[in-house]
């Protein structure tokens, strides 16, 4: 209550000091190191309530006893730094964002306090000869995250992901035609794999390459073509030879403005997953963007694509999504993000049980998951460098995937863990952000 009062007084004070000049200066934040180099420094504090901190299923049992879910209050302390040299010919930038999650352990101290940890996100980018007919760029993104993306392994796991890409682009004199070739490598590692061998099946290294071309033939409108491959090797997996895969995606499309209020994107193509089995598929994205003035944006669309999976070779996503943004009085932003995804997994790879190791049973057949995300939020710019955001997030997943592990403990007794992967998670967050 005291903290809330302090925050309220602080917010009220800041509101009193808002001026039109401050709002107009919104693009001038940052410390200018040199003529073309700007340093941005940020700090945010986010109290968060989460109803299911491990994204666990209520059906999960240990020796027949339901484990249940744990809720908690988490405080995020997040300093950040971005520095960017940007001139006519080159851009070089570096960012680092730290997020210390402090679990207060309100419901179950043992279960939640050990989750307190540091998340890290860092980026390094470079673009050279930007105004030339041939340009070169690179990027490296590193993250240490307790809630990795990926749809195979729901829950909370400490994941390290590094993504490095090199690109070479060519464009014509008029800048209407552009072609780009990229090559990169992704490295993914679960820290839990040090102690729990099951996680080793998810660690991977990926080699990625693609060629992209676009032609702007009308104002704000372009046609594009992309062909990409990925060779993903689960290098520590017990089923390495079967789970490694090479998805190839080729797609073409058109996007741009139809009227001043309406824009659209249509793209479609062919996907193939070359793994233990070969799966031919299609990919598609249809998107409609409605803009009304500078204050209203509505985006809705349908997406289908295919990605690799360690146990199922690949999974295809059908997604319907809708994003709505409304700016009010120049300082308020109301947002609503909604998506529904239907995930179809490929044929399951059943690992051979090694002698003495836990007996793992994964139900056969076709795995199908459904994922519903709903995220309304309200943001308020008190100053161009100081803002608040109140948001709610709902994540609801149903899955017919479950995993039965019978393991022998050191005292010769056995333990049966039956894990389900459907869950519901509610979050309420208040983000207080300073970013200058």
């Amino acid at each position, binding site marked *: 209550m005291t903290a809330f009062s302090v925050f309220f007084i602080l917010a009220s004070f800041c509101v009193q000091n808002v001026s039109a000049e401050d709002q107009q200066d*919104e*693009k001038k*934040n940052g410390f200018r190191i040199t003529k*073309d180099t*700007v340093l*941005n420094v940020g700090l945010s504090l986010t109290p968060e309530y989460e109803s299911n901190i491990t994204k666990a299923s209520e059906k999960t049992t240990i020796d027949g006893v339901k484990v249940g879910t744990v809720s908690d209050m988490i405080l995020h302390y997040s300093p950040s730094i*971005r520095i*960017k040299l*940007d001139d006519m*010919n080159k*851009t070089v*930038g*570096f960012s680092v*964002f730290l997020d210390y999650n402090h679990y207060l352990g309100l419901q179950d101290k043992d279960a939640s306090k050990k989750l307190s940890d540091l998340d890290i996100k860092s*980026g390094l*980018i470079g*673009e050279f*000869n930007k*105004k030339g*007919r041939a*340009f070169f760029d690179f990027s490296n993104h590193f993250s240490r995250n307790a809630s990795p993306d990926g749809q195979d392994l729901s829950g909370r796991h400490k994941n390290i992901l590094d993504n490095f890409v090199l690109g070479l*682009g060519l464009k014509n004199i*008029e*800048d*209407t035609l*552009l072609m*780009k070739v990229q090559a990169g490598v992704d490295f993914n590692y679960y820290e839990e794999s040090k102690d729990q061998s099951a996680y080793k099946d998810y660690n991977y290294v990926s080699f990625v390459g693609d060629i992209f071309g*676009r032609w*702007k*033939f009308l*104002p704000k*409108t372009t046609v*594009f073509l*992309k062909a*990409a*491959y990925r060779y993903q090797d689960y290098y520590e997996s017990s089923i390495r030879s079967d789970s490694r895969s090479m998805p190839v*995606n080729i*797609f073409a499309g058109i*996007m*741009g403005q139809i009227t001043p209020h309406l*824009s659209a*994107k249509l793209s479609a193509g062919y*996907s193939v997953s070359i793994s233990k089995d070969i799966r031919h598929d299609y990919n*598609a994205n249809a*998107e409609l963007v409605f803009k009304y003035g500078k204050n209203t944006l509505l*985006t809705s669309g349908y*997406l289908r694509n295919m990605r690799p999976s360690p146990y199922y070779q690949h999974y295809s996503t059908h997604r319907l999504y809708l994003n709505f*943004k409304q*700016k009010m009085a120049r300082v308020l932003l109301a*947002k609503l993000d909604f998506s529904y995804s239907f995930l179809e997994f490929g044929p399951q790879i059943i690992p051979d049980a090694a002698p003495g190791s836990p007996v793992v049973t994964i139900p056969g057949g076709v795995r199908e998951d459904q994922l519903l995300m709903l995220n309304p939020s309200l943001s308020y*710019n008190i100053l161009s*460098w100081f*803002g*608040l*955001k109140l948001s709610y997030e709902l994540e609801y997943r149903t899955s017919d995937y479950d995993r039965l592990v019978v393991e022998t403990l050191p005292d010769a007794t056995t333990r049966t863990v039956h894990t389900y992967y459907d869950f519901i998670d509610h979050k309420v967050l208040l*983000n*207080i*952000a*300073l*970013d200058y």
Partner: protein
Amino acid sequence: MKKLIVFMMLFGVVQFIFAKTENEPADTRSEADSILKEAAQKAARVSEIEAVLDKVNKDAVKEKDVKWKVCLDSFIGTFKGVSLSAVKAGSKIEELVLAGQIDEAKNQLILLRGLAESAEKTLTESQTCERQLTRVDAQSSVIKEVNTKITGTLSNESVNDAMGIGFSREFVADTDKSVVSGSDLADAGGVDSSDVNVESPGSQGENPVSETEIEDIIDTPDIIDVSPTK
């Protein structure tokens, strides 16, 4: 009283006579100064135009733009005569003024005015020379020949803008502070950034402070405009 009136009249006559003789050279000096000043200005302007034409001619040679060079040569040839005459007229005016021949100097100034006018006309006409646009170095070819009708010159004329990318980036609590954004040279709604077909990203991440500067630079005319067709 009579004596006083006579004295006053004599004083007035003397004043009139002496004042006239003293003022006459002052007027002449002022006119001479004015002639010299204008002559110097006209001569300097002709020299300035000569320097501009010389620089443009060198650019044409550097860019190996034969068409442009040939066109410029015809104007530069004509201009050489104008420039020489202007220099001669300028020095002659100076000599005439020193010799006190103000009327002659005035005639020469009229000639110099005509030559300067001719020089201005030559400069204007030389700017209508058509260029072949053969220069292919990074600095000029892309900037000056970008098809801005299609590509736009500002971020709000891009494909990304049409797709709503960066719509709410000014909201400090709503942006991703872990991302440092590049220039997105592809301007293709994020399609180029993933190996699979994906939806358009909702936000570009950070507040692009420096990108604003680039837009400003593009707006200011350090871009070499293509000369209009002759």
